[in-house]
């Protein structure tokens, strides 16, 4: 299996403080991995290290076989964000299209040439893939949080990345949308063979869809399948506070007592 992200004993320091250290991570092609952990532990920082925006203080990091930052054109990134303003006079398809060539100088001349047609086809394709065709031509600011999030995922996917980095994509969504967007990400992961690193502070909505989890904590990091890592003992050790893991009647894991689950709502 191809390795997409690999870190060996990596650590990061910011403002003279060690954010995390001793992190060993391997993410394979087409894997859906959640980055979990308490607030302020450096989950977003981990994505920024993968993007090459922050240098690790020690250890080795390889992304898509290269040094971080060298392969960013093969990475789709969705930063942590607030919703679009209601008055934003731009359609969903325009947002997706910006992901295709919005970073390029100049205009696509001719405006209706073969290149533009290829871009338009690709935009329609990803919009269809995320199930946003019905509302992609409406102004983005008038769409619900879940609809906006689907279009932003389409934007991150439009250049056929090998790795998708999603920072708290479920944060502003209600419970139903959290589940459907998680299911969508899993499906994209499977059908497109793209590896996904998803940062979340609440594990429960994504738990049924994950392949593996990476738990970051001040003491270090643990990576493995949900069954291996999401146990009362491991989580209690990582958080330093008692945490229970229960199974509901369908056999699903539910984490109880996660200190930051409802903190900022």
């Amino acid at each position, binding site marked *: 299996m191809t390795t997409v992200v690999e870190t060996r004993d990596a650590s990061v320091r910011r403002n003279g403080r060690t954010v995390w250290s001793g992190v060993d991570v391997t993410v394979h092609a087409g894997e859906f991995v959640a980055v979990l952990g308490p607030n302020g532990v450096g989950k977003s920082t981990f994505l920024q290290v993968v993007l090459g925006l922050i240098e690790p203080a020690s250890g080795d990091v390889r992304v898509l076989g290269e040094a971080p930052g060298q392969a960013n054109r093969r990475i789709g990134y969705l930063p942590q964000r607030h919703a*679009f303003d209601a008055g934003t006079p731009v359609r969903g398809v325009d947002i997706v299209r*910006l992901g295709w060539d919005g*970073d390029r100088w100049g205009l696509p001349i001719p405006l209706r040439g073969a290149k533009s047609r290829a871009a338009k086809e690709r935009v329609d394709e990803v919009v269809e893939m995320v199930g946003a065709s019905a509302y992609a031509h409406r102004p983005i600011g008038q769409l619900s949080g879940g609809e906006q999030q689907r279009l932003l995922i389409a934007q991150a996917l439009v250049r056929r990345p090998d790795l998708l980095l999603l920072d708290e994509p479920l944060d502003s969504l209600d419970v139903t949308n959290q589940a459907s967007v998680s299911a969508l990400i899993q499906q994209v992961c499977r059908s497109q063979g793209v590896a996904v690193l998803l940062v979340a502070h609440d594990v429960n909505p994504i738990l049924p869809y994950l392949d593996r989890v990476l738990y970051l904590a001040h003491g270090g990091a643990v990576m493995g399948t949900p069954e291996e890592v999401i146990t009362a003992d491991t989580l209690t050790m990582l958080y330093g506070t008692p945490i229970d893991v229960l199974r509901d009647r369908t056999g699903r894991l539910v984490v109880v007592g996660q200190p930051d689950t409802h903190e900022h709502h």
Partner: protein
Amino acid sequence: MTAHLTWNLVEDIRLLLQFPFMVNALRAGTIVAVVAGAIGYFMVLRRESFAGHTLALIGFPGAAGATWLGVNESLGFFGFCVAGALVIAMVPAGRSSERSAVIGTVQAFALACGLLFVSLYHGYLTGLNDLLFGTIIGISETQVLILLVAGALALAALAVIARPLLFASVDADVARARGVRVRLVGALFLLLLGVAAAGTSQVTGTLLVFALLVAPAATAVRLTANPLAGVTLSVVIAVLVTWLGEGVAYFSPYPIGFWVTTFAFAFFLLASGYRRFAC
């Protein structure tokens, strides 16, 4: 000097174009409207109207100073507006409260300087009125040429930065992650806004630039959420209100600034009404 409307379109257009000053006014107006319509669209998208207004007001001391020193007025407008844009661009965009405070302070000082230059120059009253509210007469061939060159350069530059600018304007965080140099693009846009404000001031006067810089764009975004259609519509509306305003001003005793602004406002009201009933 007021011409009489015959209500015969061909005859009226002949009357309109019989004097070179009116031909120059229409040329200048058209150039300025195209530039203001296109750049104004991005200004509205970026919510930088306050910066745009201030840049226009900074043109006032530039032009007043140029008149006082006997230099071409256009150069005064462009020089001051572009310099003002550079000053505003140096304030980090992230801190919007700080930015608007700096912009407001610069604006007040610019107006005060303009007042000083006007009083130093003894052609006092008519000069002040024309600078602030525009005039249909007195646009020279040289001024048209300067407007044309500046406008063409600004539009070419806008075409070069259009895509990253749109990206940075609607979603700065994602744009930055995609490698767009958000700060640089924003600073370049302010320069273009300075050029647009300086050019527009010379037709509508510094106080009424928004007739062409904001109103057409605000009208366009009420009618379409497609960026390409939005820019095009904004330009078309700006050109239309300029032609209507200049034409009516020629046949009426009232000033051009009033007419251009009134037509722009009418378009805006119609678009707002349309959106209310259509949605």
